[in-house]
């Protein structure tokens, strides 16, 4: 498993907390593993939860009309990169 970056660790914690993933430790999430349909077993409803949590926590919206959604939600790494690229800078 490749190492989590700082931003990925923060996002992993947010996901685990918001989805009540009881048997997953944020640090154990493989940043390159698929978020959906893989070991984590997340689904599209979880995507909605993640989007809501991201908008609250980072202050920007993941949008339905983004043609790259499939890519963005592919892994923790991809999602984190997208967030870091688009979140409003403090």
């Amino acid at each position, binding site marked *: 498993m490749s190492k989590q970056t700082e931003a990925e660790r923060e996002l992993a914690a947010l996901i685990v907390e918001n989805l009540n993933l009881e048997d997953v430790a944020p640090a154990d999430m493989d940043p390159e593993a698929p978020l*959906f349909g893989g070991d984590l077993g997340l*689904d*599209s*409803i979880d995507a*909605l939860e993640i989007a*809501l949590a991201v908008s609250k926590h980072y202050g920007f919206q993941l949008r*339905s009309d*983004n043609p790259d*959604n*499939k890519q963005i939600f592919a892994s923790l790494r991809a999602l984190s990169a997208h967030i870091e690229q688009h979140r409003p800078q403090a």
Partner: protein
Amino acid sequence: MSAHWRQRPEGGGFFALWLIRTIALRCGRPAARVVLYPITLYFFFRRGPERRASRQFLTRALGQRATVWQILRHIHSFASITLDRVFMLARGERGFRLEVEGLDYLHDAIDEGRGAMLMGSHHGSFEALRMLSQRYQKAPLRIVLNKQQTPAMTALLEALAPDIGERVIDGAQDPASVVLALGEAARQGHMVALLADRGRQDEAMLRVPFLGEDAAFPVGPWLLAASLRIPVVLCFGLYLGGNRYKLVFEPFADTRELPREGRRKAVRGYVREYAARLESLARTHPYNWFNFYDFWHDTTQVVGNDAGAGVGRDVGARA
């Protein structure tokens, strides 16, 4: 084993829809309705699986073996509603008598501005709901339609009712985008309509009692409602015969108070309650039932959906 409903022809395809549309709009409803008799006979004799499904359903709903006459009536009722869709899309309420019951429940939900989720079914005419939605501009109606799976229906919608067509959420996108789009619609205070009685192969289903035997219902629509924390209103567009329709709204649940931990458990309760309500209407209005396939045993083959509940199709069974 009979072929699954999704593998059956899309109720006619482009040519049949064009034909219906042309005859209907050129000649008017009374003339077009005459054509329904030969169509009914054609379906009865040529579409064995649908005929058997009708008999199976009616036998359960009526509590005694369905007669040929009852099956013909069932098919004729389906044909009538299908024809009326054209008129409703093209001309709205004109020419129909539309009774509405329980509209206050819908108003209450919409007035809060949190959006509302309308749970429908393949029982009766959902188009009747669209007629009503033309009266309510402030809370547009949003539906999910898989544009790739039902190109003929999509083309019809876009040709006859472009305003509705524009507001269709395309179910063919990746699941995350569909769900996000529904979330955005709800946040804008829109009405989101889903049909919660059919599922797909890759969708988590729950088997609950329905007309004497367990049948599988999708859990995705309910999980979605729970995630959006919006009021859920049941909606049934009953065809009463002739030119009469009745829209019934019933308050169902407000998911706002639902604790996150108990969500998936609560959803099981919702599915049961919904199935019970649908059963009751299936008994009082049996000829409105439009799931022309073996509703109780075909679920392992469910592979698609045409209007509504394809949402959350990748939903797993995570507790």
